[in-house]
């Protein structure tokens, strides 16, 4: 009964969504506000309807309705309640329901805004958001239905279907398979929602961009309306990516945070084009230039969001066969192709009105440097896109698959990331419109000095790797330029208003949140870059089989094996946990507990490292293997990951900067 109710609500939501899109089009074609209003109300209703659908799915999961195939696949009796709740997005069908629910929430939030000034955008925003929602709901209802149940046929077969086949009986398993153990981690609880929030938020600027193209209002109004949406989308996507990195570091047990896996790259690609868009729209706002380019970027970002959603859960790109066998793979591609072609066609129709109004006065002006920034981001996107998709192409053409490991990505993208760091050091001190070598040099030499001194310090510390030295120089350059920019702002405020340093910092940031929030984001990025350089250039590792009392040595640290214990837990897993002691120069620093959890329900092991984290380095110990009966000898892998904590610290700074940039500026604050 509850299952039927959930499915009925899904179908009802699809009907309402289709109605909203059609009513909006009818309203525009007849120029009838009543139809548009009706479409608006219909799109508002999708949110409560999908909330009920989500509630039904959660009810089924938490009450153990294992006759439902999705519930059986992602939950089990042994799972605690909080994990059962996260099982909503633990599988493909639930993820798509969750995505649709967020989409409905965001489109409803847009519908609630004041539309007086932008009435002509309203119907087209409804059409775009609702068509996106129709696609996802269609996927859920026809291909990835979370309400499909198990049925036993008279022939004794078990089949999965929404409605009972003739003569069949409902099959109710006593227990489910349980959530994939890799997903049973605090990071994974909030990682997918954050990523999906980021994905879904980018639909809103895209909807406004298309509305601008269709209505011909191609000025920067759509950009001003969606500025905060875009920042929010970027913020969520960034948090999602960082949580994914942390999850990989804590759970996957290979000593790193980013494996250049297609699923990771699928989430990175819209972030790359979205970041390019965030920078590029500033040129349009300030100078009325590059409107065509901004349109292209947001169209690309939207389609990459759809692509990312599809790739994250489906895994169909793993082989041609998987793609061909997947029902949703070709449909996703068709939808991406259709939306891309239609959007580009609309853009070409408005090509003339999207021409730049301004003129470039200088090759070193900030707008030119922003363009170079866009080129580098697009370059990164091209490399990533090629790396993810080429294996499929290779398999189709030659019948042989190829692998793109971290080595390839680091070589292909390293110089581009370096170029972006360099631009982060130059662009903030270049001026809009006119910037010459002379003016730039005058502003540049002061922050350049500390960065050169920092290089001296790095070399004096014994670092000789050219890539790392260049990386540290760029980090020092961006840091000193950012601090210098803050200092200039503080000094000018103090001079004109007599404020002290703290007041000046506060007011400066409050008055121009986007700019100074952006600088804080830059600081976050360079802290993260420190962690990346630390682990990529200086990671050390060793592995060995030890008996209790024996040690492994890595970079001056001694990691001693003390003991190992093995036991079964109430939530259905077997735990093997070692006690390791980390010491340096004879001084005991910390005990670590690397362990291996084996989940009986899914028959999957999970490696959880023992980590001693400091700002200098992490000692990361993995229990690789052990002799189950004696538990005497065990094999451990020990990593020393220098500076990696700066990656997490930088992420927090970056998120804080983003929140400052997103935070609305009160009128009285802006006026001060």
């Amino acid at each position, binding site marked *: 009964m509850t299952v039927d109710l959930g499915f009925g609500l899904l179908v009802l939501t699809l009907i309402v969504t289709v109605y909203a899109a059609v009513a909006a089009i009818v309203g525009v074609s007849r120029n009838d506000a009543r139809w548009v209003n009706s479409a608006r109300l219909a799109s508002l209703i999708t949110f409560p309807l999908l909330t009920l659908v989500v509630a039904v799915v959660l009810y089924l999961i938490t009450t153990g309705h294992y006759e439902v195939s999705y519930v059986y696949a992602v939950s089990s009796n042994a799972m605690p309640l909080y994990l059962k709740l996260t099982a909503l997005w633990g599988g493909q069908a639930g993820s798509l329901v969750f995505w649709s629910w967020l989409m409905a929430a965001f489109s409803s939030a847009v519908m609630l805004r004041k539309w007086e000034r932008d009435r002509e955008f309203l119907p087209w925003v409804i059409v775009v958001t609702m068509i996106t929602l129709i696609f996802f709901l269609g996927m859920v209802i026809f291909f990835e239905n979370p309400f499909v149940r198990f049925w036993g046929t008279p022939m004794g077969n078990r089949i999965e279907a929404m409605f009972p086949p003739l003569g069949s009986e409902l099959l109710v398993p006593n227990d489910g398979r349980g959530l994939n153990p890799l997903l049973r981690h605090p990071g994974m609880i909030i990682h997918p929602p954050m990523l999906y929030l980021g994905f879904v938020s980018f639909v809103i600027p895209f909807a406004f961009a298309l509305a601008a193209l269709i209505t011909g209002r191609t000025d920067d109004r759509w950009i001003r309306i969606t500025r905060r949406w875009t920042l929010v989308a970027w913020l969520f996507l960034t948090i999602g990516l960082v949580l994914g990195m942390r999850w990989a570091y804590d759970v996957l*047990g*290979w000593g790193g945070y980013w494996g250049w*896996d*297609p699923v990771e790259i699928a989430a990175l690609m819209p972030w790359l084009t979205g970041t390019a868009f965030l920078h590029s729209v500033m040129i349009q706002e300030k100078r009325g230039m590059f409107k065509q380019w901004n349109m292209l970027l947001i169209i690309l970002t939207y389609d990459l969001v759809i692509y990312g959603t599809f790739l994250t859960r489906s*895994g169909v790109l*793993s082989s041609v066969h998987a793609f061909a066998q997947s029902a949703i793979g070709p449909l996703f591609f068709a939808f991406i192709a259709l939306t891309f072609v239609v959007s580009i066609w609309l853009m070409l129709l408005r090509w003339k009105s999207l021409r*730049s109004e*301004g*003129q*470039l*006065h200088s*090759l070193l002006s900030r707008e*030119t440097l922003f*363009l*170079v920034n866009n*080129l580098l981001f*697009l*370059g990164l996107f*091209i*490399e990533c896109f*090629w790396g993810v998709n*080429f*294996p499929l*192409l*290779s398999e189709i*053409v*030659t019948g*042989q*698959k*190829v*692998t*793109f*490991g*971290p*080595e*390839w990505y680091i070589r292909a993208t390293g110089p581009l990331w370096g170029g972006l760091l360099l631009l982060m050091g130059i662009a903030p*001190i270049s*001026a*809009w*419109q*006119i*910037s010459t070598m002379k*003016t730039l040099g005058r*502003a540049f030499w002061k922050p350049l000095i500390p960065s050169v001194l920092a290089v001296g310090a790095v070399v004096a510390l014994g670092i000789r790797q050219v890539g790392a030295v260049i990386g540290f120089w760029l980090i020092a350059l961006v840091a000193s330029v950012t601090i210098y*920019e803050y200092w*200039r*702002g503080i000094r*000018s*405020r103090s001079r*004109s*208003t007599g404020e002290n340093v703290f007041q000046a910092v506060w007011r400066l940031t409050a008055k*121009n949140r986007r700019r100074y929030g952006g600088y804080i984001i830059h600081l976050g990025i360079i802290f993260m870059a420190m962690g990346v350089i630390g682990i990529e250039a200086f990671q050390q*590792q*060793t*592995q*060995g089989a030890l008996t209790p009392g024996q040690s492994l040595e890595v970079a001056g640290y001694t990691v001693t094996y003390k003991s190992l214990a093995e036991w079964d837990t109430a939530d259905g897993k077997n735990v093997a946990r070692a006690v390791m002691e980390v010491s340096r120069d004879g001084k005991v620093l910390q005990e670590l507990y690397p362990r291996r959890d084996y989940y009986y329900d899914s028959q999957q*092991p999970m*490696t959880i490292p023992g980590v001693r984290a400091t700002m200098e380095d992490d000692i990361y110990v993995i229990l690789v293997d052990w002799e189950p009966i004696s538990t005497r000898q065990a*094999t451990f*892998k020990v990593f020393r990951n220098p500076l990696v904590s700066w990656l997490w610290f930088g992420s927090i700074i970056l998120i804080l900067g983003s929140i400052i940039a997103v935070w609305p500026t009160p009128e009285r604050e802006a006026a001060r």
Partner: protein
Amino acid sequence: MNKHKILRLFGLLAVLAGFVFTGTAQAQDQVPLVVTDDMVNQVASQLYCPVCENISLDVCPTQACEQWRSLIREKLEAGWSADQIKEYFAAQYGDRVLPQPPNRGLNRLVYILPRVMIIAGALLLAWIVMKLRARKPSSVPTEAAPQSSTEYLTRVEEELNKRKGE
């Protein structure tokens, strides 16, 4: 020749003799190499699991990968180099076990196309910049713009303060 020089000469000869004899002894004995886990992992990290997706052999937990690591150990003990082992695995399981596509045949596109696209993008950007610079100005700034909005802000605030004072 004094005593010290003679001693030094003998010392030098002894060292040279040591090198020669050690080399000969190593060549004659063929003692099996002691292969550590680190040496195995060093090679395994440059190979990818032929079964699992995007997981290098040094971290893959499956039984098959454990056997492949043992195979790497055997090969290393037999005196194979890392490149020979990589070639062996590629011949056995295909190019997908290599960490990046070998630069031949269709795979050349992997290395050429993105670079060509980025260079084309840079040229396009240069063309756009030149075109926009050559365009008749819609609004030419009459004087050099301030270096940054901070300076502009300062100027505005100074002007405001002056007027307040007037």
